[in-house]
């Protein structure tokens, strides 16, 4: 971040003081990155990439890269949603269950009822949005704690999933939708393309719309936001709904990728999406960070998991390593904040 081609401190500050001149575009990007606390993560990410490419010659191969970014896409989509909720001061522990249930419901529509596969795909997303909305309604109207509500609802969604599917995969998904999960556009896997579209939308909403500003404001202080006349409950509800929709999207794309609806889709996404957000600089206490940072966090998790496989470390060690990354990331964050505080 420091190495950015931007004249050091004083000129930018002077511009603000004089009032007339606007900071340059570069300066604004630098501030954005700094505010979003993504600078350190970016460096860490590049460092890990460097280590990975030295550690294994296969890492940078086209085939491996494709597989890395394809699997990143799913966690990335969910993590960006989770980051939005964390910024708002909430969280959703049912993202995995929503992905699984929506995938199964979408699959059933296609296979058992012969509904048009694309329509079913969209209906799967609608189911996800509804599940998210239910979470949001419980949290806002009954003023329940999001952690407790979504743990409970995760159980409910998973239970419904198992009852309907009897724990078995829904097979014979119509091949028309396979390209959404398996296709490759200009060398880039389709799920990753979808993730990039989500990134665009989420970044636009969080950074350039009043709705996004309201999310940050509510995450900073719900009382202050209320007093500022921000429609607090509406924003919270809609965000829960959006997160449900994104989880379902990840679930449906996974169905398209596998060609079957597995009830177990999304199992690992809950904790990994929170971990990715934290690694990416989103505070668990709300109010700071950015979904793009969470995506970087997801990328770090994805690359590390990949390199573990490439260098032939026991797969049993993978879980431990993933855990260590999370702890290391939040420790680094805490240490850098301590240093910043000491400087204040």
């Amino acid at each position, binding site marked *: 971040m420091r190495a950015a081609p931007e004249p050091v401190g004083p000129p*930018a*500050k002077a511009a*603000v003081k004089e*009032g007339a001149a*606007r900071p340059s575009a570069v300066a*604004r990007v630098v*501030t954005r990155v700094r*505010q979003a606390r993504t600078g350190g993560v970016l460096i860490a990410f590049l460092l890990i990439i460097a280590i990975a490419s030295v550690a294994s010659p296969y890492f940078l191969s086209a085939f491996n890269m494709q597989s890395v970014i394809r699997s990143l896409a799913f966690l990335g989509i969910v993590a960006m949603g989770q980051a939005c909720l964390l910024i708002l001061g909430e969280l959703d522990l049912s993202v995995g269950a929503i992905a699984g249930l929506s995938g199964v419901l979408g699959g059933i529509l296609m296979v058992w009822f012969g509904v048009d596969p694309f329509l079913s795909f969209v209906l799967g997303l609608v189911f996800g949005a509804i599940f998210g909305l239910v979470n949001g309604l419980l949290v806002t109207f009954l003023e329940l704690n999001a952690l407790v509500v979504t743990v409970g609802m995760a159980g409910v969604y998973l239970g419904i999933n198992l009852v309907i599917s009897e724990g078995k995969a829904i097979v014979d998904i119509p091949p028309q939708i396979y390209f959404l999960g398996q296709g490759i556009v200009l060398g880039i896997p389709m799920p990753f393309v979808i993730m990039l579209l989500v990134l665009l939308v989420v970044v*636009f909403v969080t950074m*350039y*719309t*009043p709705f996004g*500003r*309201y999310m*940050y*404001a509510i995450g*900073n*202080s719900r*009382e*202050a*936001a*209320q*007093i*500022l*006349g*921000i*429609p607090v409950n509406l924003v919270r509800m809609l965000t829960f709904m959006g997160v449900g929709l994104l989880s379902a999207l990840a679930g449906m794309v996974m169905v398209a990728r596998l060609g079957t609806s597995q009830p177990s889709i999304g199992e690992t996404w809950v904790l990994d999406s929170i971990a990715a957000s934290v690694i990416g600089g989103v*505070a668990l206490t709300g*109010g*700071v960070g950015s979904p793009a940072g969470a995506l970087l966090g997801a990328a770090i998790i994805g690359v590390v998991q990949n390199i573990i496989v490439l260098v032939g470390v026991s797969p049993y060690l993978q879980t431990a390593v993933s855990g260590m990354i999370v702890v290391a990331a939040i420790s680094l964050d805490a240490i850098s904040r301590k240093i910043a505080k000491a*400087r*204040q």
Partner: protein
Amino acid sequence: MVVLEASGIRKAFPGVVAVDDVSVSFELGRIHGIVGENGAGKSTLVKILDGVLRPDRGTVRIEEEDAFAHPRIFANVSYVPQELDLFRNMTLAENLFMPFRKAGFKDVLIRQSRLYAEAARWLELFQIDVPPSRLAKDISVSNQQLLQIARATANRLCKVLILDEPTTSLTTKSISRLFDVIRQLKNEGRSIIFISHKLDEIFDLCDEVTVLRNGMKVAYAEMQDVDRPTLIRQISGRDIDEKFTFRPRAQAAQDVALEVEGLTGRGFSDVSFTLRRGEILGFAGLVGAGRSEIMQTIFGYLPAKRGQVRLDGRPLRLGDTHHSIHAGLVYLPEERRAQGILPLLSVRHNISISALPQITTRGMISAGREEVLTQRIAQAFDIRTASLERPIMFLSGGNQQKTIIGRAMASSPKVLILDEPTKGIDVGSKTDLYALMRNLVEGGEVGIIFISSDLDELLRCANRVVAVYNGRIVGEFLTEASSKNEVFRAMIGEKTNGRNGPLQ
């Protein structure tokens, strides 16, 4: 006898020297006031005296011993912060003696009966009339404040007690109770360091006073050798005439902006009054009289039981802050930190948050117009910050207050309600704020309701003052024609000849 002595203390942070070559000593059995503007270095100095911060230069000696060489002896100094930080879900007794070992409970098991018996003594000493088994969250705010001081004192070693603005959220009655306790501690031979912005309290309580300005010690005096104007000049470095008034010109007052009729809500009933554009209406009353509740109900943050509020002649939908803001009614809460600022966001985003509709085109916030708007507000309201990108939590209290008033004005409101806007703000910044309010009102677009517990400040700034006692409006006074005594008697519930109901 000198118990605590700091000499040649200097402490710098990047870009600012917080404390510069300050030497000061504290004696047993005396109350030593420390005064100064926000940012004068009081809290840095106190943190050094308490051993939390290490100075760049200089020494702290406690009973003749170099304290930073033997950090253990800092146990002699107890610091009571301004904000309450009790263990809310534990009993008073547990709060008092935590950590138990330090308070003399050395057994592995703590015997509840002994704990309560010991606690009862302390509670009695501090005039906290509550059983020691009660939870800290269940007692009144003033008792919590006293408990916090009791806790610091219960530590047996405590010879020096540092009190940082202990009275900000206390009623007049509990302040005098607190002062009794402080004097008693002094008579027991403890040394007390008392920090406050309220000069009345300094004169009332202290034996000696040290003034800090811009990190330097600019004056020290025995209390009997100094008068109020001198002290104010030392604090602010300029002449401030406390008699000077900031009342808006009477002819600035125009048509009625806000009408409240028979409003009844939590903690108050049957409140009626009117506010004109171009005037400042003061609300006087004791802490707990219901002023904040009335305003928060008008604003829609608290539910109303009965009554009507009209803004510009149109009825206001009660209980809906979103609607109030759009109708042009803005409320700035007393709890600036918890309810006013968005602490982690930049000054820029803190300002623009309430003006987003103005700077948004087709759903997208225009960075250029946001820049123009925030620059304009920052200049008009003289917000001093190194950069608008700085998180607002790092600004001084006065600058935070100016920022949120600027934010409120960015949405061009018709009525602005300021709830204790000068709380925790130094003399100089207060005067700036008075002038700012007058200028806003004389612009003729807005009417201001000004709540304050400082009657002098209300009489200096408002055109009219309404006195609230026990949830009811008990009188209304034209400030030009009323004495302080008159208003004061109304707000403590005595009968007065102050006219009831709105003046026309």
